[in-house]
């Protein structure tokens, strides 16, 4: 019985408004995200340029390497920077991201306190170019950008790694938000399926409403012991605005914006995702389907970004919660 009670009936999920993978792919993504817009978010260099053009802040680009023979010169590229991040331009899910906090000619200290040799970093860049981390294994470009100087705001809430806010934006309206916190188990990564903590964030207030790890509700961070319910994201309106602008920027009806908070520069878009996952529902303990349905059918159309955010923040009856 206990094994059986781990399962929900389909109609229960439907009543709870849970969006499932097939419906996300078939009804939401296929109808709201045009295929030709994907390259805008799949290529991080392109995303960065588009974002900067429209006035969205991103981590600054140092440079990029797209040919194997250039790899040996990567130290010249990052000359003058104290730290840097290497990413595959077409990567997904944080794969192939290498954060170098400190380095000398031959020793590179990563964010998770590993020390790598020059050979290993060289190898990593080379792997990126060969397409190891890119979608479909195509040849890729290695992107070098400045390391985000993380706000100390969330210091106690994350074990190493980068706490970031994921906001799902539908038809320009922020729909659901969560914060992803790295744990010891997730090895500094923010991927929920690797054991990171997901904290559901109230879309109006920016405050924590629920938290999960491994699909199970929790209240305290497993490593730091911080009370997750006290989590509140500062500059929340800026977060929302930034995510909502992603709609104007890319034209994608359904997108996920990953936002980090820099000590000096404030919220910055790390990347946009045309196929954001569904775990955010578990972190919020709330289904997405009902919310998307409301946005599509009852929210006003053709508003500017600020008007949309005002609409969201001033909504009194939260139709998405009973």
């Amino acid at each position, binding site marked *: 019985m206990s094994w059986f*009670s*781990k*399962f*929900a*009936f*389909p109609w*229960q*999920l*439907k*009543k*709870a408004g*849970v969006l*499932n*993978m*097939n*419906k996300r792919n*078939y*009804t939401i993504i296929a109808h709201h995200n045009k295929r030709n817009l994907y390259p805008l978010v799949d290529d991080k260099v392109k995303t960065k340029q588009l974002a900067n053009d429209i006035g969205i802040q991103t981590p600054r680009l140092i440079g990029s390497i797209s040919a*194997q023979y250039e790899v040996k010169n990567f130290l010249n590229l990052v000359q003058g920077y104290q730290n840097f991040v290497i990413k595959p331009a077409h990567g997904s899910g944080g*794969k192939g991201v290498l954060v170098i906090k400190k380095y000398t000619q031959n020793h590179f200290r990563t964010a998770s306190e590993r020390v790598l040799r020059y*050979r*290993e970093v*060289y*190898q990593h860049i*080379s*792997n990126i170019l*060969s*397409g*190891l981390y890119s979608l479909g294994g195509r040849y890729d470009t290695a992107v070098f950008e400045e390391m985000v100087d993380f706000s100390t705001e969330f210091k106690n809430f994350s074990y190493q790694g980068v706490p970031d806010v994921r906001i799902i934006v539908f038809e320009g309206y922020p729909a659901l938000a969560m914060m992803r916190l790295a744990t010891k188990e997730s090895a500094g990564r923010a991927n929920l399926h*690797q054991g990171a903590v997901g904290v559901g964030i109230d879309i109006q207030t920016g405050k924590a409403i629920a938290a*999960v790890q491994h*699909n*199970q*509700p929790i209240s305290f961070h497993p490593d730091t012991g911080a009370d997750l319910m006290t989590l509140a994201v500062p500059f929340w309106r800026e977060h929302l605005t930034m995510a909502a602008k992603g709609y104007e920027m890319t034209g994608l009806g359904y997108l996920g914006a990953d936002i980090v908070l820099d000590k000096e520069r404030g919220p910055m878009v790390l990347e946009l995702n045309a196929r954001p996952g*569904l775990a955010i*529902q*578990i972190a919020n*303990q*709330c*289904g997405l389907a009902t919310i998307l349905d409301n946005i599509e059918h009852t929210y006003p159309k053709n508003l500017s970004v600020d008007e949309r955010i005002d609409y969201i923040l001033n909504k009194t009856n939260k139709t998405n919660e009973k």
Partner: protein
Amino acid sequence: MLKKFLSVRFWLTVGLICSVLFAGWSIYYKVKDWDFNLTPNQTTPVWAIESHLTFKPTNKPIQITLYRPDGSRIYKILDESVVAKNYTVREEKDKFILTADPQKKDQSIYYRVSVYDNKESRGKIKDTQVPTIKAPDFDDTLLPIAQQILTLSEEQSGDSVQKLIRLINQPMPDETVITFMPERQDIRATAHVLTKLLALKQIPARVIRGITLEEGKKTSVPDVMLEAYDMQGKRWLTYDLQTGAIGIPENFIVLQRGGKSLVDVAGGVDSAMKYSVLKSVNSSFGMAKYRAKSARQENLFTYSIYNLPISQQNALKWLTIFPLAILIVVVLRNVVGLKTMGTFTPMLIALALVQTGLISGLIGFGLIVGIGLAIRTGLSKLNLLLVPRISAVVIFVILIIQVCAVLGYVYDWRVATSVLFFPIIIMAWIIERASIIWEEEGFKNAAKEVINSVIVAVITYFIVVNPTIRHIMFVFNELNVVILFIVMLLGTYTGYRLTELKRFAPLVKKTDTNGRK
């Protein structure tokens, strides 16, 4: 409403229904006319009957009438030929007429026919037209005896015909019977008299000639049975002349109904007929061509895959099972929600398992992946570029396969030889991917993904390995179209996956479950 009619799902459903109807229709005709079976390895016996006619010519023009079996009814004729030198052969519906100028030497003519049993139509010869009865030519002395015999026969059991047959076959026959009937051994004459007696009772009857098919049989006289018309059923019933049993025995082939003899020779004397019978067993499937021909569907057959050379058919036997395997993968991924390595990797592993056998295949798979992963771990220390590295893994896989095959052969471990059947490129990618997941997300996640793929492969294997299913998918290849539409319809399935029922279970509010109790 209109929206519903224009939706993709609607049209795909229409397509599915059409394809099911088409497949149903097509399968019906394949079974009926081509005799395709739902189970593999069905066989049909084929009988080759050779009639050898010899006679002495009499210096006159020769005309021979050879009665040929009426192939459209009880059995089908595969092939027939007349071997007759110097003769002109004319083919008619129920006979061959051979003519020749006067000859001097003894003549020898062969007629060969291959037939196979058409079981469904056995003993069900309908004839709505009531045959006319020829009045029997009994003279004044014989007529009372004949009538007496008919009266005597009433004491026997069975219908009128059976009563008569049983009366004359009594171990100690009545005196009247002995005087009236010809010699017991002369079964042909007996049959002839029986038709006359039956005519007296207003029952149309006729003698049928044929051959009881027995392996390697040689005979100079055809076998005889009696056929009487059943007024109620409007059909001919066949009777055994000794027991009175109704129905054509399993191995009896009718060559001629009514008529006097199987062969008429004009312009010759001392004619003798010899029959020899040979039985051969053909697979029912191989007979389809002939059946199609007799069902006037030759063109349909010519443009079907069953007309291809056997080697190509064998290749297609593999291909036609693929759609089913694909369907299983689609269901397991999109409806059940299992995550696998690569979309069709599990399917390819499953097809390899079919060739290796399940247990030895799984061990072989484990061997390759295990050894491959160990080597791949070593390779990653060398910091090779991606393409050369995966190429090296491919070569290592080939080397592992060679070593396993040799060891397996020398030490007679059949398990090790099974590695030969796995697709090397697929194996190399499994190793590469597993090793990357291992590095990035830990051993647990890597093992999980490999095991998931194997589970899907094993499920697919159990369906694909079934000889009946494979046979059906090949023989009724229109099912491929049905599967196509099912797969496309599944492409519009937006419901929850089975795994999501667990994944999202925490989202169902606790109050909700309490309220149910």
